[in-house]
Each structure stands twice: as C-alpha cells, then as structure tokens.
C-alpha cells in the first residue's frame, strides 16, 4: 500500500503549476477528442443500421445525447466549483466555474437544437413545453444568467460571488431534467442508457454513442482547461508568476521576489 504513488493534487491549485499542467494536458485532450469523434462518426454513420421505426433521423442521437449529458455534467461541475469558491474563497475555483459556463451553454444549446431537429420528423413538432424540454431550456438560461452576472458587476469579486450563488441555487434543475421523463408524462422518449439495464439499442449504436460521448468529454476538458488558463492569465496579468512562466524571466532579471503578493492573488480572495 505504501508503494502507491501519491499525487499532490493541491499542487495544481497553485497558478504556475496549473498553467504548466494545462499546457501539458491540452494537446493530448484535443488529439483524443478528434480521434474519438472520427471513430464515433464512422460507427454512427457507416456501421450502425437505420432504426426500424425512425429510419436515419435517429443518427441525431449520437450528437443529441452526448451534448445533453455534457450540459448537465458541466453544470454540476460548475456548481461544485462555485461551492468551493464561496466556501473557501478559492479564486482558481471561480476561474474554473467561469471557464466551464460557455461550453456548458454551448452543449445545452446544441442539445436543444438537435433535439428540436430530431423532434420535427419524429414527433411532428419542433418544440413542446413539456418537462424535459422546458427544464433543459432553463438550464441554458442558467448558464447564460451565470455568465451575465459575472460580466455585469463592475467589481469582479462581487460579480463572481453572485454568479456562484446562482450556479448553486440552479443546481436543483439538474435532477429535474434527468428524471423528468420518469416523473412526468412526456413526449420525450425514456432514458436510452441507464446504469442498471442493458442498453436498449443495437451494439453498434451503443458503441457510436459511447465514442461520441467520450469525444465530447475530452473536448469539454480541453476547451475548459484552456479557457481557465487564459482567464487566470488575464486576471493576474501583472503578477510575477505570469511573467516568469510566459516570458521566461527570472526573479533576478525582473527584480521580482518569489514571495511577491501577485503569485498568491489567484489562490485566496481574502487579503
């Protein structure tokens, strides 16, 4: 047991270490996302057979389901970072939450858009105000509201705290979306994949769905981490660590000291 390597996770809450970690991870995440997307699209369009009821329109599922899952997952993750931000005043947590929101909004918007285009040939309508569709639309508004709050306040600290609070309150919406097809009568079909039952679709369909879901995951991780990195740089552009990692300047060369307050700015909001 003692041989288990210990990863010092807290190291990565230090801004320079986080910066370096993102630079190391992101190329792999992009590569993985691209490979999985190509594989998923290949299986989804050239291996998986047409659906016996819906024909080929069901292929929208390979985009619709992963983006819908990703939207909910990113919201939960954003809310967790919002809690860390408010409870311990960790600014890097606010950076993370803020960096996930645009991608969460994009995923949710795509889920709504593709759902609408899937609904048209399948249900005969683009939109109904039923539980799942309405709560998904609310999820999109929560992401946009979070971003608006963040941007609206003149004081970034205050805006960030208000936005975090909204993110936490809005989290009740996620289980509502997820279970809406069980709790209410709805036009939306039931869960395609559950943790307990075998998938109710052909193996090739399931494989395509899985590949596309993983691709979405890696894409969101790559873009979320990169955005967090840029956001952190932007927020502390004058900090000593930023110049050191970006320009390769040494402490001696710039007259900065290692313990300069700039490097602590991101970690703790309390002064």
């Amino acid at each position: 047991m003692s041989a288990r390597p210990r990863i010092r996770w807290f190291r990565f809450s230090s801004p320079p270490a986080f910066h370096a970690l993102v630079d190391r991870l992101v190329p792999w995440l992009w590569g993985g996302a691209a490979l999985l997307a190509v594989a998923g699209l290949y299986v989804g369009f050239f291996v998986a057979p047409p659906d016996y009821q819906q024909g080929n329109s069901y292929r929208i599922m390979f985009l619709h389901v992963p983006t819908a899952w990703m939207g909910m997952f990113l919201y939960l993750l954003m809310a967790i970072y919002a809690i860390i931000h408010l409870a311990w005043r960790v600014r890097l947590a606010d950076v993370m939450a803020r960096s996930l929101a645009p991608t969460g909004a994009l995923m949710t918007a795509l889920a709504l858009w593709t759902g609408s285009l899937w609904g048209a040939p399948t249900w005969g309508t683009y939109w109904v105000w039923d539980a799942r569709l309405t709560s998904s639309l609310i999820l999109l508004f929560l992401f946009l509201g979070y971003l608006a709050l963040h941007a609206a306040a003149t004081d970034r600290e205050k805006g960030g705290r208000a936005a975090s609070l909204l993110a936490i309150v809005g989290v009740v919406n996620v289980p509502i979306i997820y279970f809406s097809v069980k709790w209410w009568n709805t036009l939306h079909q039931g869960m395609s994949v559950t943790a307990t039952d075998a998938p109710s679709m052909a193996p090739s369909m399931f494989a395509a769905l899985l590949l596309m879901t993983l691709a979405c995951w890696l894409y969101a991780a790559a873009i979320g981490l990169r955005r967090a990195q840029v956001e952190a740089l932007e927020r502390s552009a004058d900090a000593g660590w930023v110049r050191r990692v970006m320009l390769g300047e040494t402490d001696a060369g710039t007259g900065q000291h290692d313990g300069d307050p700039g490097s602590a700015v991101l970690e703790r909001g309390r002064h």
Partner: protein
Amino acid sequence: MWDGIGDFLAMGGHGPWVWGSYGAALVLFLAEVLLLARRRQRVYRMIRRRARAAGMSGPSMNEGGGA
C-alpha cells in the same frame, strides 16, 4: 450500407434534420475554438506589452524586456 454519396446525404429523407444538427455542431465547436484561440493571443500580447512597459519604467531593467 449507402448507395453512393447522394443516398448518404439524403439520409432516407431525413437529410435536412440530420445535417442541420451536425452542421450546427461543427459551426459552434469551431467558433468556440477559434474565439478562445483569439482571446488567448490577445491576453499573451497584453502581458508582453505590460511587462515591457513595467520594465521600461522599473528600476532594474537591464536585460531587454520581454518579446
């Protein structure tokens, strides 16, 4: 499985819905990536500019600023 490119694009009559979905995804993902890349470049430029400015007015400027 498909009878040529036309058959593939037609998607058994569901082409507009299927390609409308995947097309929107392609556009939005590309837009997000490009916008973020631009923002990143902007931030990098800003940091270099500020480092130069700080270096010029600072007391211990001896080795040629940043960029």
